[in-house]
């Protein structure tokens, strides 16, 4: 069936040393360095393999549409707590894991990697390998399934993934505050040190939005304590979807988009360009040029603050999508890549140009 077809295509390409471009719905073609090579389509290998609501675990094949998966989970009152962005209707589970991108809830509920319990991959030799499993705790062997999150398909074609789920919180409320950036950052870090049911935060253009989720009593008590102005349910749903899917006006337009992942308490960055903050200050989106001088300035600022900068969306990424690695880490990356994909055929260059 389609798994064998994928396997066959990998073996054949490995024999020729031909690059393969692994692709599901293509909703994240823009992410990372430019895709190249012959198309390997993962969409046919789809479907939920098992779903046990009382185990809080789902296992599904790579081609499963994120939208279908989320619908099934939602029928049982559960969800992917890392709120993965789809960036398009065609987004698949395989792409979600490979990209390793998490949405607004990340700072409070963990990331894709945190939810990964197990995975099956086809490595660069076309071998089917299974790591992890369907249980919450599993320390047998190295944690390869978590390593796969964000590997952009360079270590293997992720053909199946098992993910931890959470029950949907019964109550959500979004509060809005008029605040300058520095004050918003200070408040977010202070609040994060208190037992408050915060599930998302976003600041842009002088306005901080704060989402509370949990038991009704907890949400109400927190809202009373924090003040601010409550958004309507529709307003809140539209706003968080806009942040998660990057349809918010901040993300529209051709100016390159930088993603800076920083310690949450890092002070407001003195970089020119509009900013949108998420994750309690740990994620900062910046609209700024991507030429060599700008790239160097943005990456230096991120690195100085203790984080890293990714050129997320841009017409061209001559400086590379991702921050360069230290020599030791670069060597470990190359060695790991070589062990999973000796012929170097799986999404070559997508993560770093040298592999």
């Amino acid at each position, binding site marked *: 069936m389609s798994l064998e077809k994928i396997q066959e295509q990998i073996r054949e390409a490995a024999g020729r040393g031909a690059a393969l471009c692994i692709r599901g719905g293509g909703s994240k073609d823009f992410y990372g360095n430019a895709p190249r090579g012959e198309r390997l389509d993962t969409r046919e290998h789809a479907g939920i393999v098992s779903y046990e609501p009382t185990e809080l675990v789902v296992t599904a094949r790579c081609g499963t549409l994120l939208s279908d998966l989320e619908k099934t989970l939602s029928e049982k009152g559960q969800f992917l707590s890392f709120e993965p962005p789809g960036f398009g209707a065609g987004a698949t589970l395989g792409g979600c894991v490979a990209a390793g991108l998490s949405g607004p809830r990340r700072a409070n509920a963990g*990331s894709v990697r945190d939810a990964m319990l197990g995975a099956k991959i086809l490595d660069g030799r076309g071998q089917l390998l299974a790591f992890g499993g369907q249980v919450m705790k599993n*320390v047998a062997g190295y944690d390869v399934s978590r390593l796969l999150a964000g590997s952009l398909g360079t270590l293997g074609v992720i053909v199946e993934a098992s993910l931890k789920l959470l029950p949907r919180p019964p109550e959500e409320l979004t509060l809005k505050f008029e605040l300058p950036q520095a004050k918003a950052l200070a408040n977010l870090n202070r609040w994060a040190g208190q037992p408050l049911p915060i599930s998302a935060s976003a600041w842009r253009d002088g306005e901080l939005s704060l989402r509370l989720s949990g038991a009704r009593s907890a949400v109400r008590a927190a809202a009373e304590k924090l003040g601010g102005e409550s958004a309507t349910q529709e307003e809140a749903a539209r706003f968080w979807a806009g942040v998660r899917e990057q349809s918010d006006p901040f993300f529209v337009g051709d100016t390159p988009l930088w993603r800076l992942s920083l310690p949450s308490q890092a002070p407001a960055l003195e970089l020119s360009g509009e900013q949108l903050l998420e994750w309690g200050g740990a994620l900062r989106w910046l609209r700024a040029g991507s030429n060599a001088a700008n790239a160097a300035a943005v990456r230096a600022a991120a690195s100085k603050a203790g984080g890293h900068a990714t050129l997320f969306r841009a017409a061209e990424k001559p400086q590379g999508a991702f921050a360069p690695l230290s020599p030791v880490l670069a060597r470990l990356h190359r060695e790991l890549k070589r062990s999973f994909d000796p012929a170097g055929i799986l999404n070559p260059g997508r993560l770093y140009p040298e592999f």
Partner: protein
Amino acid sequence: MGNALPQVDFVLQRKISEKLREFLPERCVLWQQEDTQPYECDGLTAYRRVPMVVALPETEAQVRRILQTCHALGVPVVPRGAGTGLSGGALPPGDGVLLSLAKFMRVLRIDPVARVAVVQPGVRNAAISDVVAPFGLYYAPDPSSQIACSIGGNVAENSGGVHCLKYGLTVHNVLRVRGYTIEGEPVDFGSEALDSAGYDLLALAIGSEGLLAVTTEVTVKLLPKPESARVIMASFDDVEKAGDAVAAVIAAGIVPAGLEMMDKPATHAVEQFVRAGYDLEAAALLLCESDGSTAEVEDEIARMKDVLTAAGATRLAVSRDEAERLRFWSGRKAAFPAVGRISPDYYCMDGTIPKKRLGEVLKFIGAMEKKYGLRCPNVFHAGDGNLHPLILFDANDADQLKRTEAFAAEVLEKCVQVGGTITGEHGVGVEKIDQMCIQFGAAELETFHAIKRAFDPKGLLNPGKAVPALSRCAEFGRNHVKATGQLGHAGLPRF
């Protein structure tokens, strides 16, 4: 399990000691047997080996030079934290250096605003929560050994605890690990940001059982202490009913802060030891905890009580104050030492299973008790399916020891067969290395070896642990036909 007498290569021992003494003071290098003997085992005492040399560095620079020295000499290095591990991960090399990080005991930085603490690997798990308590913060993972185990060991094993269902494992609560490769190169995995560029090597390093790098610094995430926490103690007249109650709690959309089960033999052992006030009539006890704001906890406790009652609980007791909550937990946390008092020795298993298979697996364990003539009380991280059956035996009786090993192996294989794993949080070490041949096929094991080679091409860091050589699996498979009727690693050349 072995008690091999040390066959010390005195020439090599002298050579290593002298090389290390070039940069380490006398107090940091042990080689005489009376000094090295205390390091012969970790928490898995059935396996012992006296290390050839013990190094106790006091600075990162010394760790680096020890590694460089051993790498140049081609000598194995086994890192050791507090030595509380239960899988023999710190079993010393008879032909190399046991690298103890016990002197790395400083808390380097606490940042209450960023909610992180930077600590040295020898800092005890519970000590982290103690030092950050004045800021209203704590470190979430709480293995039962938390008063003694060190954070470096927690990183090596990806330790869990009784609150992981809600708060995660070590991998979810550590932001950065600084360490050294076997070649003595400094490496940082992760950072104080929530992600890093490139592969998630932090996820790979955590739980790698000291095979990839030596940890010298750990940055942990701190959480605000919940305003309130209460625990329900629920009694059941049947173990399977208690298992179903666990599923019912989750199905109701509740994620308890902790959800633990003990069977009757376990509660009886514990009650004699700590007087936790357990219901001794019950066939199984559940401890189900809620934490959060005061109002939230009241709501959740009420919902939990409804679900547990509907699931057939015969008695419910809710902790009335913090002292009572801690008393209810004290029994669970003291389960291992309590069992240690009713039997000369006990052997702790660590399989994890899908919760829905609990009844089946417990019945299987019951049948094994009869088959091998050994008792086996059960304590169980019910919320996440992690079993800790404790086989009671007397190590002085060689036959009992053999039966215990066979008992444990059958249970672990059962865990794999029902879709679980041989180890949830204690690690493979030397103890479960043969069962790795059942959990994984040759291709996965070869991938693990390739990962190891990427970090440590000469295979000097903690060799022989965690991942079995394929030849070992072939040997194991020869005497061992899998439940499916197929020989393990059928594709592997036999020699």
